[in-house]
């Protein structure tokens, strides 16, 4: 405990430096704006900002990008509540009761509870991250190639089980992402694979063009031409204060959302999106008056908003402790650290304590900044939404080209982004989720290396994966998930996703 507190003091001595405070503030402001704008989610926002962080020191880079990430989580709630426009996917559930509250003249309390819930969840999750990440990192030192293989395969199965749509579609997209990740020079043999003579492809496909294409550009292709958003309400400071009854009703959902969101955040997938769906379902199920949900129940705002912010923080645990991204956002952030020559993984916390603890402390600071930003300045931020979308999307389109090109000054990257944009558009039209592609792309080199090293270690026997206790435990979890996925098919029961209102699997 003393060690943690001492390290946290070290972190605050880093995070409270004026330059880092300024970048944390800038990240939160940019993130809030990114979260509010339809068509620009946290991933596209972070990807576009990535080139600008190359000239910064690694602590500032990660603090800035993390600020954008959880700023976007906050910002998404504002448009959901006031205009029924989810700025980013995790805010979809907030639209239901948040907008219903706005229609009943309770927009202020909805915004306040969303901000308070996000603040509480964010802060509690940072405390959990602080204790869990170092423990997990020291445990991960026991991991060899078979354990990493088991962990990654388990991650893909968890992702497919937890995702909103079909498990098969998710696995197919993850496999497609893994294949994309195999383009370029094979690290073990030096062969250049699937590059078709393009020298630029020898280094492989980067996460930024894929992420911006799949998420940013495809969103523009889907939404370009939409009508102007509806009129916006701007609550005053006085109108933001929730009633005592609303506060009481929100305590349980905020607590449950924080715990649930953090736990879901640790496992791979679009955790912040899933956590908000699951939280909404749980709150509706636990409520004595479930009929209020959909008609302006404050619990329907408090739970999902807390859960998605807690999940955003939880996602940093495997990223910092194991060097494994749980989603595209953390993958881009890992890329930001690696650009500076820092190897993420179990040794990061001991070798770069200023980076880890400075980052943890900056998250506390960021949560305070966001609380300040999101309550008094909400009226100021919503002005941005007065810009007609027909002016906004061409600018976002240009930002996509600018951001992708500037990562490595490569026109090939921009072509990849355009291809991925078209691909992402087709996927979304046909009900496929693009997130597993980005995750597969990132994890592909790690999975390939660990599988081939494991086989080399065992002299070609797959038995090595079932000889080691940690790997066996992970495969057991994977097996249970497969059985759980098959259960509704065998017993014709609704699975958990249908029960909480998620899409029915095909």
């Amino acid at each position, binding site marked *: 405990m003393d060690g943690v507190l001492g390290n946290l003091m070290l972190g605050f001595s880093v995070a409270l430096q004026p330059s880092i405070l300024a970048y944390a503030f800038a990240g939160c402001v940019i993130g809030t704006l990114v979260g509010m704008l339809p068509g620009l989610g946290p991933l596209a926002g972070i990807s576009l900002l990535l*080139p*600008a962080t*190359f*000239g910064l020191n690694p602590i500032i880079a990660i603090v800035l990008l993390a600020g954008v990430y959880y700023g976007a989580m906050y910002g998404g709630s504002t448009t959901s509540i006031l205009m029924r426009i989810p700025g980013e996917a995790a805010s979809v559930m907030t639209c239901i009761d948040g907008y219903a509250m706005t229609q009943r003249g309770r927009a202020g309390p909805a915004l306040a509870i969303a901000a308070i819930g996000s603040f509480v969840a964010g802060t509690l999750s940072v405390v959990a991250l602080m204790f869990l990440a170092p423990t997990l990192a020291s445990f991960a030192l026991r991991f060899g190639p078979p354990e990493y293989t088991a962990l990654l395969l388990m991650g893909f199965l968890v992702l497919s089980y937890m995702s909103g749509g*079909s498990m*098969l*579609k998710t*696995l*197919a997209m993850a*496999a*497609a992402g*893994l*294949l994309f990740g*195999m383009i370029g020079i*094979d690290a*073990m*043999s030096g*062969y250049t*694979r*699937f590059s078709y003579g393009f020298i630029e492809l020898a280094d492989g496909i980067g996460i930024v063009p894929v992420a911006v294409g799949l998420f940013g550009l495809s969103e*523009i*292709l*889907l*939404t*370009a*031409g939409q009508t102007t958003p509806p009129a916006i309400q701007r609550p005053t400071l006085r109108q933001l204060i929730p009633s005592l009854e609303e506060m009481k009703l929100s305590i349980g959902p905020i607590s449950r959302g924080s715990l649930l969101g953090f736990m879901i955040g640790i496992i791979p997938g679009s955790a912040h999106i899933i956590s908000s769906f699951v939280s909404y379902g749980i709150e509706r199920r636990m409520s004595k008056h479930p009929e209020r949900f959909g008609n302006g129940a404050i619990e329907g705002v408090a739970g999902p908003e807390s859960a998605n912010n807690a999940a955003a923080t939880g996602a940093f645990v495997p990223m910092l402790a194991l060097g494994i991204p749980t989603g595209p956002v953390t993958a881009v952030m890992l890329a930001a650290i690696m650009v500076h020559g820092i190897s993420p993984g179990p040794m990061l916390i001991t070798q770069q304590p200023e980076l880890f603890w400075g980052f943890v402390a900056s998250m506390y600071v960021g949560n305070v900044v966001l609380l300040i930003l999101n309550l008094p300045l909400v009226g100021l931020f919503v002005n941005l939404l007065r810009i007609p979308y*027909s*002016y906004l999307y*061409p*600018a976002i*389109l*240009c*930002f996509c*080209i*600018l951001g992708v*090109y*500037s990562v490595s*000054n490569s*026109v090939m990257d*921009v*072509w990849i982004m*355009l291809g991925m*944009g*078209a691909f992402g*558009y087709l996927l979304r*039209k*046909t*009900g*496929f989720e693009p997130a597993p592609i980005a995750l597969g792309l990132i994890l592909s080199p790690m*999975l*390939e290396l660990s*599988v*081939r090293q494991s*086989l*080399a270690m065992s*002299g*070609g*026997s797959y038995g090595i994966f079932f000889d080691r206790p940690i790997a066996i435990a992970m495969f057991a979890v994977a097996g249970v998930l497969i059985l759980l996925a098959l259960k509704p098919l065998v017993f014709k029961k609704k699975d958990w996703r249908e029960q909480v209102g998620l899409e*029915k699997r*095909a």
Partner: protein
Amino acid sequence: MSGTGTPETAATPRGVRSDRAAGIVIVLVALLVGWENRAYPIGHLAEPGPGYMPLLIAGALGVFGLLIALRAGTSPLFNTIDWSESRRGIVLLIACGVAVFALERIGYRLTMIALLVFVLGVVERKRPLPALLVAFGFAFVSYYLFATVLNVQLPRGPWGL
């Protein structure tokens, strides 16, 4: 359907299910990857070569694609999917493609001005003055912000633009 009095057979929509079409495409992609993978040595289990993992993953992809195609019963019909925005999307993609081609030839600012003038003026049919103001404003402000303030390398075209 029966409530309308229309015979069930006559009202049943026909066509390919979207998941069936997608599943078949996935299987074909998996086969293509497997075919292209012939160029790389598979190695043997004790020492897997560069072709080993792509073949393994392509096999898995093919199986998933096949299962998606076989379980496509409840997915919507492909021809019932609304593609109304696709025309605008294709125009935007072509415009971006031309912009990418021009980027390193005529420089960042001229490319962005041309792209924005086209999208705002032709695609969105905005009046010329606002379209030009937005195009020039965006190109010069973003260049200043990224290239000058943040030191990001952006291509310059003729006359240093």
